[in-house]
């Protein structure tokens, strides 16, 4: 056993350090360097220059596309945002007639978007990460490959089908549960209100949303879990950590930023999901925390656009695009907050971990008891998921 496997390196949360993908390579081959670029010789090869140009060009191109979309949204949305909603005859007709200004219209929609996405994420993210962990670290290897595939498949089911599935399966399935929740837990505000009779509630929508974001969260988390350096895992196990402690000490810190990325991609889909929500939920443009009522479900921005776009007049169309602009801003804010949490969290925990190595200070008495056949069997299984995705 390599005696360079120091406690620090295992508990380190910096994924980019001292990792080897091939476990036959000795650990710690080079000093970790945070920046990617090595010292290059002054001679620049043409292929290098072209490649660099292409990469940079693509990055810039993305900026151009986004600028285009943003410009389009602003140009299209502005007239409705600044319009006088009380006097405009176009806006006093149809679905915008009940609102005094763009902001009173978009406020409830904004709430509904965040609310439904939040419920979906609360249900979906832990389960998604759980499945990923199960596939990468718990399931037998053969099963893991198959399961990974089934989950991937699900990402391909069009949202229309999810909508229909929600209508014919989830709605009836949740009906008795809604009744039960309303009867026994109705004192909790979100389960209150007039309970549904057809099942088209925000709860049903959020459950379907959760299922829709599962494949995204699971696939990416799984890939990342599988990339955890085996030496980190084995070092943790060798020190007497149980399987869960190994996951907590070696896998999670390594995969943290990836998990957040995966969750954010899932959240992005949940925020922007249109058709499934539009088909399942019976919406109203109000702020409501009720999750199992028929007429008091907060509408989401994307579904509202899809529902009203066909009938909208020109200015109303612009109002809808204006709400789209806001959705844009919201996902931006959500992403920024999440990124902030990731960077702050990782810098804090890494500095903390270095000073305090408690998790790996295994009580001597326990260490012996955990080093049993059970552990060895676990380890053999741990070697299993390698390449399960291939």
């Amino acid at each position, binding site marked *: 056993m390599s005696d360079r496997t120091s406690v620090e390196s295992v508990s380190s949360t910096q*994924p*980019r350090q001292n990792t080897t993908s091939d476990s036959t*390579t000795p650990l710690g*081959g*080079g000093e970790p360097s945070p*920046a*990617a670029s*090595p010292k*290059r010789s002054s001679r620049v090869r043409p*292929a*290098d220059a072209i*490649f660099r140009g292409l*990469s940079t060009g693509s990055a810039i191109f*993305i*900026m151009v596309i*986004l600028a285009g979309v*943003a410009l*389009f*949204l602003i140009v299209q949305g502005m007239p409705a945002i600044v319009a006088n909603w009380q006097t405009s005859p176009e806006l006093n007709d149809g679905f915008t007639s009940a609102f005094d200004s763009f902001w009173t219209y978009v406020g409830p929609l904004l709430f509904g978007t965040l609310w439904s996405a939040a419920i979906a994420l609360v249900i979906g993210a832990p389960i998604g990460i759980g*499945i990923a962990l199960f596939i990468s670290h*718990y*399931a037998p290897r053969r099963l893991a490959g198959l399961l990974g595939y*089934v989950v991937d*498949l*699900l*990402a391909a*089911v*069009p*949202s*229309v*089908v999810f909508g*229909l*599935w929600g209508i014919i399966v989830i709605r009836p*399935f949740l009906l008795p549960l809604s009744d039960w929740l309303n009867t026994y837990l109705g004192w909790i505000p979100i389960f209150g209100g007039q309970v549904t009779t057809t099942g088209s509630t925000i709860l049903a929508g959020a459950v379907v949303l959760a*299922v829709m974001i599962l494949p*995204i969260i699971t696939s990416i988390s799984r890939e*990342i879990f599988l990339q955890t350096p085996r030496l980190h895992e*084995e070092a943790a196990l060798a020190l007497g950590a149980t*399987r*869960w*402690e190994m996951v907590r000490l070696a896998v999670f810190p390594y995969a943290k930023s990836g998990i957040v*990325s995966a969750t*954010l*991609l899932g959240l*992005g889909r949940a925020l*922007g999901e249109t058709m499934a929500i539009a088909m399942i939920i019976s919406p109203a443009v109000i702020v409501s925390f009720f999750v199992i009522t028929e007429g008091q479900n907060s509408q989401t921005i*994307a579904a509202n*656009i899809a529902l009203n*776009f066909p009938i909208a007049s020109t200015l109303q169309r612009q109002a809808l695009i204006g709400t789209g602009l806001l959705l844009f801003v*919201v*996902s*931006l804010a959500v*992403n920024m907050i999440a*990124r902030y949490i990731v960077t702050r969290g990782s810098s804090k925990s890494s500095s903390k971990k270095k000073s305090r190595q408690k998790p790996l200070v295994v009580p001597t008495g326990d260490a012996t*008891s*955990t*080093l*049993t*056949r059970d552990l060895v069997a676990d380890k053999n299984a741990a070697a299993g998921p390698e390449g399960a995705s*291939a």
Partner: protein
Amino acid sequence: MTALSPRTVEKGPVPNSLTTGQLPRFAELYIFGASAVVSGVLLMLIGFDLIGWLVLSAVVYLVLLGILSSLVENRRKAVDRLVRGLVTVAFLLAIIPLISTLFTVVSKGIGALSFQFITQSGGSAFNPDTLEVTNTPGALQAIVGTLIITGIATLISVPIGLFTSIYLVEYGRPGQWLSRTVTFLVDVMTGIPSIVAGLFAFSLFTIILGPKAFSGFSASVALSVLMIPTVVRACEEMLRLVPHDLREASYALGVSKFATIVRIVLPTAIAGIVTGIMLAIARVIGETAPIFMAASFTDNFNSNPFEGPMQTLPVMAYTGFAFPGTDIAASNNSAWGAALLLVILVVILNLIARVVAKVFAPKGSR
């Protein structure tokens, strides 16, 4: 490696301190059986319900396991067992809706599938004497449309997305404004509502081509806008996971940066990249709203992406459900058929992608 995982294991229980405080070997199975029975009996008293039974069994199982393990073994062991149980239960719970969705699609769609359905486009015939219009279901126009539109979108997005992620990981330095801005913008792009992407692409093309700019290509552009952020995010994540030692070893041998990326970094990350790209394709292949906006709708066969409306499988599924013909059952039937075809199409694409990944992936275990 071998030093870390001894292959020589004593057979049978060894009567020493190492096995003290161990739950018996199949304890988890016994406990699960017991909790199933207990919750079954409990539910019998208030009215039996299959789903309630499963859920209650799971809860009882976890509680029992936790208690027993912490009594017989120790707290750490108990937590470990509990988490294993939780992960398994989460998995089993989650797999139910997943299977249910797939089952719904397959069972409802399989009836519509036939050789004819796949190989001919949907058509209708008019009988001038009876004034009757008869429809023959067919999905060829939608299959071709899906392949063309998604194919072009992939051709646009994958190079842009992959190169951008290479830029972010290999060239851009964390503090640099361009890489910071691009990361930020990619985050923003994930939030573009799909209908807006469709409108954007259509408006762009109307500016260039005039008002009748409906085409498969403009739908592809709309899908690319939706696809690029997913590709960048997934690829970036995967490239970042490639250990630096590999790169440094390559540089140390005097290999150029270009060759290092192409020969070392990309092959190492290829499985993840392919998964990411497939996810991105899967995400857009089922879109309907942008297709309606940018490629309009048609029942006619059209294989020219640069002119005229085009139909895709999700559009066919959506219209079949949302605007059924007078024979509602027949419309729904062909809609489910289209949905199933879409899933099958993605399975095939996935298989191809996996083969590609395998061919390019480095030999040996990761």
